[in-house]
């Protein structure tokens, strides 16, 4: 309960709109948590306290929701978070080779954030893209039919984007 970074301070209007959509305030918990995750990349303890304060519930209730849904990140992730599908179709079609390739070539290891803070990766259950197995989610985008070359291109694209943002910031 130390000084919390006010992650949602710029979203006051959007939050009020979301809360207005539901019969009770607490119903807006999931949309609010999505805003938090989009802003910060993950849902921190401070963010949960903030959401609890806005919705008038206890922080334990927020944590119940956050811990229920595995797609809410409870630890910091990279700017580009790779959710690699590990279920049957993808696994048969080579998820593990892809994971090994990502680790070897690009240094992106399972459940770890790269040193530059750009990438992180975790295995997930079926993402419903069996037709394009093996597949992964790059942040919220689906990338299917993975090949080493495709991976290289994807990573290159990410690095380019990051570079562009950095340049813009400068």
């Amino acid at each position, binding site marked *: 309960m130390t000084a919390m970074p006010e992650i949602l301070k710029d979203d006051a209007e959007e939050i009020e709109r979301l809360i207005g959509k539901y019969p009770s305030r607490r119903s807006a918990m999931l949309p609010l948590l999505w805003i938090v995750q989009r802003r910060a990349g993950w849902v921190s303890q401070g963010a949960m306290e903030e959401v609890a304060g806005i919705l008038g519930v206890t922080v334990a209730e927020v944590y119940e929701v956050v811990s229920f849904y595995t797609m809410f990140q*409870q630890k910091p992730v990279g700017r580009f978070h790779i959710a690699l599908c590990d279920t049957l179709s993808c696994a048969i079609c080579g998820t593990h080779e892809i994971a090994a390739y990502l680790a070897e070539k690009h240094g992106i290891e399972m459940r770890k954030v790269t040193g530059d803070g750009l990438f992180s990766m975790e295995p997930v259950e079926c993402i419903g893209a069996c037709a394009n197995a093996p597949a992964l989610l790059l942040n919220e985008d689906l990338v299917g039919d993975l090949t080493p070359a495709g991976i290289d291109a994807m990573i290159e694209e990410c690095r380019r984007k990051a570079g562009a943002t950095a340049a813009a910031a400068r």
Partner: protein
Amino acid sequence: MAQVTKGPACGIGATIGYGAPAGKVGRALEGVPEDQLFTMTLNGREVKARKGETIMEVCHREDTYVPHYCWHPSLSIAGNCRLCLVEVEKVPKPIIACQTQVSPGMVVKSASEQAKTAQEWMMEFLLVNHPLDCPICDRGGECQLQRYSMEYGTSHSRMADKKRKYVKPQADPLIDIERNRCIMCTRCVRFCDEVGGDHVMGVFARGNDNYIGTFGQGPVSNIFSGNVIDLCPVGCLTSKPFRFKARVWELTQTQTTCTQCSSGCKVTSWTRNGRLYRTTPPSRQRHDHFTINEDTEEFICNQGRFGADFSAHDSRRGESLVRRADRLEPAPFGDAVARAGKALREVVERHGGESVAILLSPRATNEEGLLARKLARDVVGTWSVDWRANQQSVEAANAVSAALRVADGDLESEPDVVVIVNGDIAHQSPVLALRIQELGRRHLKKIVMLGHYHDPYLAGHAAMSFHNAPGRTAEILAQLAGVLAGEASVADLASSLGRTEEDVRELVDTIKSAQSGLLVQSLQDFDGRYAPAEVPAAGALRAALGEGWGWLPVTGERNAVGLNALGCEPGEHGIGARGLLDAIGDGRIKAVVAIGADAIDPLGNEELLAGALSNLDAFVLADSFDSPYSRLATVFLGMAGNLETDGTAFDIEGNIALVKAGVDPVGDSRQGWRILTELGRALGRADFGADSIEDVWTQVRAELAADSDATLAALELEGGTNAAQFVVQRPAGGARNRAPEHNPGNYRTDGLHLRSAAFEAPKAGTAPSSSDPASAADGFLLTWGPHVSGRGYLQNRASIAEMLLPKPFLEVHPADAAAIGVKTNQFAVLHVNGLRTKVGIKVGRGPARGTVYMSAGVYGPFDPSSNAGPVEVRIEPLDELVPDQGEALIAAESAPESH
């Protein structure tokens, strides 16, 4: 979560259970309208059932036991342990009894082959991840899982894989959480949410990874949290103070009542070798042994549960002391009491009986109270006997007495509307607050809050709440009484409350349309300046409310009702506790007899008291502890402590209960009634007192209930249930030794009660000059929460006292907080009359604007009562934050260690 099963689904609807005899769950169907009833078949028998009841409730009424973990009569229905599966004809699969409502003609078989197999399989499922470490588990011996394994389980498990394991969190200082043993019944989570009042516990993660805990490993912060230990059917939540101290079957159980506040909860004290190991709600007989009833509805507060072992404190003194040439020397009890008698006789001979004051601890039993009064009136010849040291002024003390004398309300009658005035009830009488909350939560009665401080614990259940400006409560109550009597207009009341006329009209309509109601008034949240005006105002309001209503003035003192009824008060002739220091100063009082040092401890700070007491010719102190006061005594008489005393006491609602000794008094100490008896005899009255507690009780009974012949044994909690059928009866104008103004009037005569039958509003007292509310205008009005055991004389001696005291805070209204510039968890300096202290701020809607609320533990350095003038309060924000409670990151504890 809580709302889902409110109302008829709970089905219990008729009576609240706390402090009441067991077996209320399967309530009799008497008085239920015929069209609500139908017949069904339970295990081949035709039984009657009520519309809306669940199978479980019918089974309870019909004495058919259905095993269950998650179902609890006080909590909402979760239906997640699945153990109460029963067979219902025409339903293809077994269904759970706790959530299924009965219907006409339903055929239920709770012990058929199908049901038994289902229960067996569920037991196997529940044990899949259970570590079976019974030898080191503290629950062993009173574990529902153990019991059901024997009764409903199989002797083997088909689980061949590794069991799930969690890292153990260090969350709460009082509750040990061992998640490996959890079966996810979520009783604790629902308890904290529904009864405890804060949703601090939760079910985290999902599926097989489910676990219970608190956010960020914080503590389970509510004042009733200890009850989750009893609610837990397995060894997941166990008591930390009791951890590994003893096995439950080794302990001796004593059915007694808690001596710490006016709720007077029935408890079981578990002792071994003369030592108190733990306190729990009353245990019940099950099969051939006694155990805590897992379905108990009698919750107790943490202070009563964990803080009752103060008699074992290091400062405990068993022997008596006598002053010889400026030194206190140990002496046999007989010599000490003779010496005390001699000292008192000398004072009486030299200065007259009126120069002696006898003060009683508010925890004193009725027996001690009666003997103290007789000692004062009949033997010494003084009017000055008092128990009200905790009241902040003479006027406030008189107001409290006046209120208690005419109180005629209680919660047993389940009033339709409860009007709460200025209550911080949860801190001074926690279980009373819990029961009021229960009325609102479970029985859907309306709770209305008035006054300038609203108890946050109850506020969540209030249907309506009306804050008023600080210090104007009496005025508002008078106006409300006027509106009800048709003498004042709603518009005036609305403008006084600063609310719309519609709101106020709703309030008035609610009160008017109620068949029955209860006016609950907290007497102790001011510095003694407001009660003198508020008590008559509340009395007038009670009179205006008329038939069906009752008035329940609430004070935290344990036996306030009994001591008040027995006339242990000085009246107009004598000197009360609050006037004592002045009277010693001007030489009117030359000798003081204090029964329990908490009879004088609240009167002022140590130096002030030490200065006054050293001016006395004789100071006889009967107490259990070494204290600054014992060192000033002429004679110190070792008195039996908590759980070493027999007697009776009343709770704030007027119910009598037995206080029973579970262990022998330490060393040479004696029970209070024995000390008073011996003291009376040492003063030359060989016939004084009595030789057994039963004889003293007979005298008390003669005072309070002339027609009754109830023995103490009849008051005993037989088998954990209250078997007492004691009828308090008091003919009007009965003789009270030389104290006609203490005649308590005509008591109502229905069982167990001490309540006034003929209500008469107390006369307006004279408020002290400093009660002008306007004087607080530029500062703040200060209110505070007296904690359950007074000002901590005893409470501080509990072995884990520091854990039980709530974290001190200062509650400020949001608008005031914005004006001063403080936020929740920021430190500030509180200035009170030039004294100051650093305290954490909590922004909340408990206090009205312009009022600040100090929690227990903040007001230590201040003694508002010693200040005649208005209290000046100033808050100065500091740029510092209250440190975090949960240190570890949640991530560290989230996932199970392995699968």
